């Protein structure tokens, strides 16, 4: 009796924590489940009706505009990732490695986008575009500008964390061992910061691909994937949106797991 009680006492918090985790996974499970749902009989009810592979196997029969919206989201996410990662990495180097007037102001401007409600950032941008006379040209470029803006802060913060964790003794050691400034950067600094840059890029991609609130205000006639889902909700959700959701999830998990496996295998090989 007491032993059982002690066991429960020891594991109660962990058990509750696992329950919370499980709860966060229920909606994901439903996304996966619904990607196999045959909703051809009734589109208006969001519930599981009949199992089918069709959503996966016949992209040709996907709802109008969905494939385009996915493709648009991918293009914007890729471009936003490239630009935000490049600009953000440079800025992170500036902030960690250089002393200059206005650093604290810069840090504040970088922090604020992460602490502002999206609706405010989105409407501000829209107000800017309209007052600058671009109200009629909202679309691909305005979405891209917005996405780069909100990804930037996250990139800077991520790369900065990695960079400031870097022992500057290492660069001095490289210089001491006959590496010029350029060699020191490419042989030591860059490889060591790279995991942070890659992480920042992945984060940017997923933030951009998934953004709705800011995008919706600045998209004009363009429709990104989250906008497509939002719009579809009002008409009855086609089940194939869950195919995209499931694919996103599987790919992300594969990237994370693949990373982990490679790392473990390397460690094992080295230890052997």
């Amino acid at each position: 009796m007491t032993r059982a009680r002690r066991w429960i006492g020891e594991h109660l918090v962990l058990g509750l924590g696992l329950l919370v985790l499980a709860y966060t996974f229920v909606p994901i499970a439903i996304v996966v489940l619904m990607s196999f749902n045959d909703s051809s009989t009734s589109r208006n009810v969001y519930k599981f009706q009949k199992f089918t592979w069709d959503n996966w196997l016949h992209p040709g029969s996907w709802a109008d505009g969905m494939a385009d919206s996915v493709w648009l989201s991918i293009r914007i996410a890729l471009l936003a990732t490239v630009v935000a990662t490049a600009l953000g990495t440079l800025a992170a180097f500036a902030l960690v490695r250089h002393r200059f007037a206005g650093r604290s102001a810069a840090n504040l401007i970088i922090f604020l986008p992460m602490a502002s409600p999206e609706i405010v950032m989105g409407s501000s941008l829209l107000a800017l575009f309209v007052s600058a006379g671009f109200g009629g040209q909202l679309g691909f470029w305005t979405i891209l500008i917005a996405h780069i803006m909100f990804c930037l802060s996250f990139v800077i913060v991520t790369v900065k964390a990695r960079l400031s964790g870097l022992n500057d003794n290492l660069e001095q050691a490289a210089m001491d061992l006959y590496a010029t400034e350029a060699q020191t950067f490419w042989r030591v600094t860059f490889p060591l910061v790279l995991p942070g840059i890659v992480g920042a890029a992945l984060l940017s991609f997923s933030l951009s691909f998934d953004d709705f609130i800011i995008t919706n205000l600045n998209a004009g006639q363009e429709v990104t994937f989250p906008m497509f889902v939002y719009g579809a909700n009002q008409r009855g959700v086609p089940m194939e949106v869950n195919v995209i959701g499931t694919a996103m999830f599987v790919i992300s998990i594969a990237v994370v797991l693949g990373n982990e496996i490679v790392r473990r295998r390397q460690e094992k090989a080295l230890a052997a």
Partner: protein
Amino acid sequence: MTSTAGVPPVSTDDTTAAKPRGRKLTGYWLILPGAVWLLLFFVIPFYSLVASSLFDPKGSVLTGYEMTWHVGNYVDAFNQYKGQLGRSLLYAGLATLTCLVVGYVLAYAIAFKAGRWKNLMLVLVIAPFFTSFLLRTLSWKLILADDGWVVGVAQAIHLTDVLNIIGLTTTDDRLLATPFAVIAGLTYNFLPFMVLPLYASLEKVDIRLIEAAGDLYASPMRGFFKVTFPLSLPGVVAGTLLTFIPAAGDYVNAQLLGSTNTKMIGNSIQSLFTTQGDYATAGALSVILMVIIVAAVMAYVRTAGTEELV
């Protein structure tokens, strides 16, 4: 110290790899592109927003707007939308509180009880981000569906009655399209923003302090509230802010899981901008939301900050 003749004067700002690296200009060049981007597309838009909130309300997207410094927009916007504003703060506040309780349990479990599964559990915390925010929110429509088992269970344990009494639901046979559904959705969507900072600050807590507390205070509960919780306050502050701010501005949950009676301020701002084209009112509402949030955050940080010192 006099400098030896023939030696070039060298400032303490080193030219080699030593501490204050790089010349001043390099730093400016590196940060310039990013800073300009944020200036152009984050800072200046705020001015545009404030400007548009002062436009003549008689204008429209089609006829164009006139700048008339019409401060009255704020009064009108506030009076017309105070219901949505109050709802936003209430829903976001309740969701934040729920996140804090639920998230604390999870963060505590990961920090102190997970052992070698720590990293895996951390990945699982952010795993929901791996798929679409909108799709996950839509899933809650299915979970909370009128004929689903969640409603059934809630009725069986009389949860629906309780929710009815405190006003989070309106009838006892539905959860969907109620304030409860919106708050549940907000809680779910922003939980990771709570867990990660909580974990980060709990992880820094020295386990020996907790053991010492167990030694000094008889009950683990007292030890927790006297030692662990105060030490995790920075995480609590960061987590609540990271949860509350986006939740207060969110309208996706209210749109997908709520009804016309659960509209939040985000719904109003977005429809004023995109469908009604009333930039003046929409701008004023955005500014009001921002001001309320900034004021709340400052008041909160001040209180939490002083508590931390005690």
